[in-house]
């Protein structure tokens, strides 16, 4: 009985220590964890099989979700803009507004968040359960570096896939928007496209692609990190999956803000 109480106290103090911020420590550990990627990504063996498996799994399998949400966002945005734009007689500007919003901001962030939810939790749970069932240790004992096999491949796969998903999602939002515009007004596809890309410049696309790379890297890296740290026991895996989603979503918003500031600065000073 006394022992139980002691144990209980011990675990509770451990918990409060853990949750007591330690924010910077975790951030430091994440940085150290990530830096191994850059050391290992260049050296063979390249585990191409696993890389392609992951590209398929992480990219292809989130396609359905990205398709639906992207289409709906484009559709709904156009519908909702219509009444107020009509008041100003500016409904012709809807394609252009939607295009800018979707390509510069909504496409990357929406896709990032969806992937954080779907892929992030998937990776977190997968790596987490491999950790708690000793599969990661089993790998390193047999002379295979689990970081290289599991983390490097997943991070690469996400980093490569994300830009394509972002472009795809922006495209589909425009399709959604075109459908919505056609419900209210008639507009040919060429007219829509002309109008959508009227005020678009090259530098509207570049930041999105760069953001997409960083989002993909972040989601996979953060999720692998929390998976690797999963505590033994069933709760540990759930927690790892949860932390993967929450933290990678937060970092996505943070990076997005940073990117907005940077591109603003760039446009003010160099364009």
């Amino acid at each position, binding site marked *: 009985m006394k022992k139980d109480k002691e144990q209980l106290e011990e675990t509770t103090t451990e918990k409060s220590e853990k949750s007591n911020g330690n924010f910077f420590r975790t951030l430091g550990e994440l940085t150290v964890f990530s830096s191994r990627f850059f050391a290992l990504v260049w050296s063979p063996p390249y585990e191409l099989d696993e890389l392609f498996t992951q590209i398929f799994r992480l990219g292809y399998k989130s396609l359905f979700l990205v398709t639906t949400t992207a289409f709906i966002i484009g559709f709904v945005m156009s519908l909702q803009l219509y009444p107020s734009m009509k008041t100003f007689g500016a409904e012709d500007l809807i394609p252009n507004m939607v295009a800018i919003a979707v390509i510069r901001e909504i496409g990357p962030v929406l896709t990032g968040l969806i992937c954080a939810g779907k892929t992030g939790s998937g990776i977190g749970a997968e790596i987490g359960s491999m950790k708690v069932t*000793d*599969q990661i*240790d*089993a790998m390193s*004992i*047999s*002379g295979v570096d689990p970081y290289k096999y599991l983390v490097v491949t997943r991070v690469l796969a996400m980093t490569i896939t994300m830009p394509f998903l972002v472009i795809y999602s922006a495209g589909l939002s425009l399709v959604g928007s075109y459908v919505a515009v056609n419900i209210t007004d008639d507009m040919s596809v060429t007219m829509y496209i002309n109008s959508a890309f009227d005020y678009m410049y090259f530098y509207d696309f570049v930041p999105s692609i760069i953001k997409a790379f960083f989002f993909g890297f972040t989601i996979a890296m953060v999720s692998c990190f929390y998976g690797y740290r999963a505590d033994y026991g069933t709760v540990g895996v759930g927690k790892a999956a949860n932390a993967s989603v929450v933290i990678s979503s937060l970092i996505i918003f943070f990076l997005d803000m940073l990117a907005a500031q940077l591109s603003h600065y760039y446009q003010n000073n160099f364009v």
Partner: protein
Amino acid sequence: MKEDIIVVKDLYKSFKGKKVLEGININLKKEENLCIIGKSGSGKSVLLRSIIGLIEPDSGYISVFGKSLDDLHENEVIALRKKVGYLFQEGALYDSMNVEENLAFPLKRQPHPKSHKEIKATIRLALQRVGLLSSINKMPQELSGGMKKRIALARTLILEPEVILYDEPTTGLDPVTSKEIIELILEMRATNGISAIIVTHDMYCARLTADRILLLNEGKMDVEGSFEELKRSDKDWVRAFFE
């Protein structure tokens, strides 16, 4: 006097102030089956993990095949680990791969991998040894606990280790399956001269496999002897294991 394969001296390990190992000493001789018995939570897995370098001890000396783990470079530790097999408590099969891929995984990634054909042959041979060739295409989820352990043992054997560390090889298995695993452990030594540290709290397993038994209690291992000697010990808590 046979040579020492594994030597552990004054090993200490604690987690966040909780003392788990408090001065452990072990020496494993060639072709010896050494059993370590302790209650669950007494630190048996922590001890085995320290020996193979998965856990860094707080202090103490560990040497494997005459080489101290501290002096070795990371690459050398990896090379050394190949000579030391490890059977995880739950088997630790890769659950995204089928049995054949599980066994091929370490083989394909050795510094000088064998040809595709040789790998296939090696895998079949290893599965035959554990009597599970028929499961070659199964996924781990389709296997029973005992089968998982046998496959895991095959995966360990495939790298031709000279020592195997068994973490509770019979825990959670029915008596018949336990017996099969125990026979495999004995066979490993008989045919390949493999030495073993067997961590367990199954006295049946200890009686059949152990040349020598060490008792792990409260972080220390002060009691040593053969099964019969320990059974007749004058200490109550030692005899308690045998009841």
